[in-house]
């Protein structure tokens, strides 16, 4: 049994090795297999293949850790100046770079396309005294220390959305008692058992627990109400001018040749219009958030500025 297993490993390694030799595009997935970035990369190329936009070989590398900064650092080292070298990243990377003092500068990479987004919801326990976002903000304002708030990792989009909410509600961001949770599921548990007064996570993670009646959804961070959550008001409707999404996109290597870079921007633009991609969005529950090349670059610069300022206000970076 052991022997056949080893043979399988060897065969897999051999297949990977030969795959690398004929692959035409190298894609860095700066996360472990199974997460959102991993599936974005793999699904995008699968859909591109199905739609006949790009049918060549693809060589994926998974290097997880630290909000994508570990993988991007490796990508920077191996792919700079190379054609056909792409990397997946997202909103979390922006905060992680500032937070970890990472030497990575997103402006060095060539922006290919912003592809998907997931909006965030803020929730309280079903038996919480707070029924609207305004109630909750008033409660936090009265005693910020006693109102433990939670969501994903410190400096991530969940944290930043709460910081923006605090700013909009005239609460000093540094006073927030933010407790990072390891997953959306953990956040729900902590809300239900009373550890957290309120929590933030992606809409898909919270919706099922709201249906079970364990939590109440107070507001969503999108510009308009979500079709699957028609009863949940937006932050703007509730009186707080906050709009934020957990977006994900594609970068090309720094110094990638111009014609090759233009080809990939074109490929992803075609992909975003294809039926194959629409099917993927549907199946994964992702929002279409497409933005091509240069405009995406401007967006990244904006996000870097905005998130950097918030993290400073929150006292997380100097």
């Amino acid at each position, binding site marked *: 049994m052991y022997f056949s297993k080893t043979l399988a490993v060897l065969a897999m390694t051999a297949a990977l090795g030969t795959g690398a030799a004929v692959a035409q595009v190298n894609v860095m997935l700066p996360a472990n297999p199974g997460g959102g970035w991993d599936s974005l990369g793999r699904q995008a190329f699968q859909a591109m293949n199905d739609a006949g936009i790009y049918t060549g070989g693809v060589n994926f590398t998974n290097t997880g850790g630290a909000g994508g900064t570990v993988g991007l*650092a490796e990508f920077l080292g191996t792919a700079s100046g190379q054609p056909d070298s792409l990397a997946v990243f997202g909103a979390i990377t922006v905060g992680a770079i500032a937070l970890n003092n990472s030497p990575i500068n997103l402006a060095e990479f060539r922006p290919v396309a912003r592809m998907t987004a997931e909006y965030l919801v803020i929730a309280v326990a079903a038996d919480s005294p707070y029924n609207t976002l305004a109630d909750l903000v008033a409660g936090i304002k009265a005693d910020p220390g006693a109102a433990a708030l939670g969501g994903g990792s410190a400096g991530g989009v969940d944290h930043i959305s709460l910081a923006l909410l605090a700013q909009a509600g005239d609460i000093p961001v540094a006073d927030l008692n933010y407790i990072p949770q390891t997953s959306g599921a953990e956040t729900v548990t902590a809300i239900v*058992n009373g550890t957290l007064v309120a929590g933030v996570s992606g809409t898909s993670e919270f919706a099922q627990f709201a249906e079970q009646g364990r939590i109440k959804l107070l507001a969503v961070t999108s510009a308009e109400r979500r079709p699957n959550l028609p009863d949940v008001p937006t932050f703007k409707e509730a009186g707080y001018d906050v709009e934020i999404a957990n977006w994900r996109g594609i970068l090309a290597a720094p110094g990638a040749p111009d014609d090759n870079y233009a080809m990939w921007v074109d490929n992803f633009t075609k992909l975003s219009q294809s039926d194959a991609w629409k099917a993927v969005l549907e199946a994964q529950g992702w929002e279409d958030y497409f933005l091509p090349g240069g405009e995406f670059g401007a967006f990244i610069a904006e996000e870097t500025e905005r998130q950097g300022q918030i993290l400073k206000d929150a006292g997380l970076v100097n």
Partner: protein
Amino acid sequence: MGTFELLLQGFGVALQPTNLMWALVGSVLGTAIGILPGIGPALTIALLLPVTTALAPTSAFIMFAGILYGAMYGGSTTSILLNTPGEAGSMMTALEGNKMARAGRGAAALATAAIGSFVAGTIATLCLTFAAPAVAELAFYFKPTDYFAITALAFCSVAVVMGTSRTRGFISLFLGIAIGVIGIDTMTGQARLTFGNMQLLRGIALTVVLVSLFAVGEILYVASRYRSTPGVMAPIKGQLWMTRQDFARSWKPWLRGTAIGFPMGALPGSGSEIPTMLSYTLERKLTRYPEEFGKGAIEGVAGPEAANNAAAAGILVPLLTLGLPTSATAAVLLAAFQNYGLQPGPFLFTSNPALIWGLIASLYVGNVMLLVLNLPLVGIWVQLLRIPRPQLYAGILVFAMIGVWGLAGSWVDLTIMLVVGLAGYVMRVYDFPIAPVLIGLILGPMAETQLRTALAAGQGNPMVLVSTPLSAILITLAVLLLALPIFLKRLRAHA
């Protein structure tokens, strides 16, 4: 939906031909590694992790469950015939089982072990089926302070109970906690103990440490004490079935073993050794044939063998429901879940019922398979013990290295493997227990996160740590566990 319907759906998953095949693969592999001394279920599953990423999670876990149960079956065979436990949980079986084999009653010993394992495995799986959903609901009531108290108690109990001295136990434990701290701190994003190495930002994978300690450390140890004369194998003699009297003397120990094993398995740190020891002691006290103990009493085989299988089901309760590993094997299973991006806990019951209930149903199926594999086919399994040791151990080392390389293709991992493996060898030579390292490594980050969450939510007031009834009780127990022996010693010295 009731537990019963969910279980039926689970059987629908477990009885699919591919899943049946993986259950069989797991059972065969589990029995094999159970029989071979030096390889346990934890190491086997860890080595298979990189390979199984190509499998669907349900199939992979059905196979792992087969390995877990199978090892408990197989371990007894080696104990009985060779007087060397194939598995830590079969230590007690060797005491009476080998005597029985030498007295020509080996077949009866093997039969009571296999049937006892089956009875205990089935009853314990039933308990798991009905206890798990209820325990899972507890996750919504347990607060961070409760979790911290559970981990604190687990730390104290493993450090005190395992190993030859508490100093050694605590050194092992803190070594594990220190390894667990390496990498990015999830709460603040700060790097800890990485010495500027980018690869260490991810932390050290549990699988790497586990394979290093068990494969490299353990095998260096076994090899360093290798003598070329193999142990004497007792031939299988006697009827291949139990007599009426054997049955009459076995069924009560089976049930008692199950009653001890299942809850003990669910407690952190007790593993499969402690329930088997307890069961053996209990049977020795209760037996009507005390003169036979030490000379081959069937009760001494039946009880512990039932206990170790029940414990194997017991460890799945906190693992599946709360994501809380209580033994090295459970820890590897947790790592396997995380490899698939799954977090065991109450959410897995709602988000992935096919996996959970398929896994539970496969335990019933696996038990039947294992009974068939082990009872009539035991003669074939014994042949495994004829594999020459040098080739076997060298082979395991090679697989271990391929396995670690396969995880991430990282040289840093291989370096860590070498360092930790040598450390594991030194620990074995100087009698430091290995299990506390793993418990520290697994539960350390959890204890830290829960402690910090509890303190942050309580705005820094330390009294929050004993603010719930459960946490107050558990912390008191932990303190007692530490202080009582010292106190008693003092008292005795003064008297």
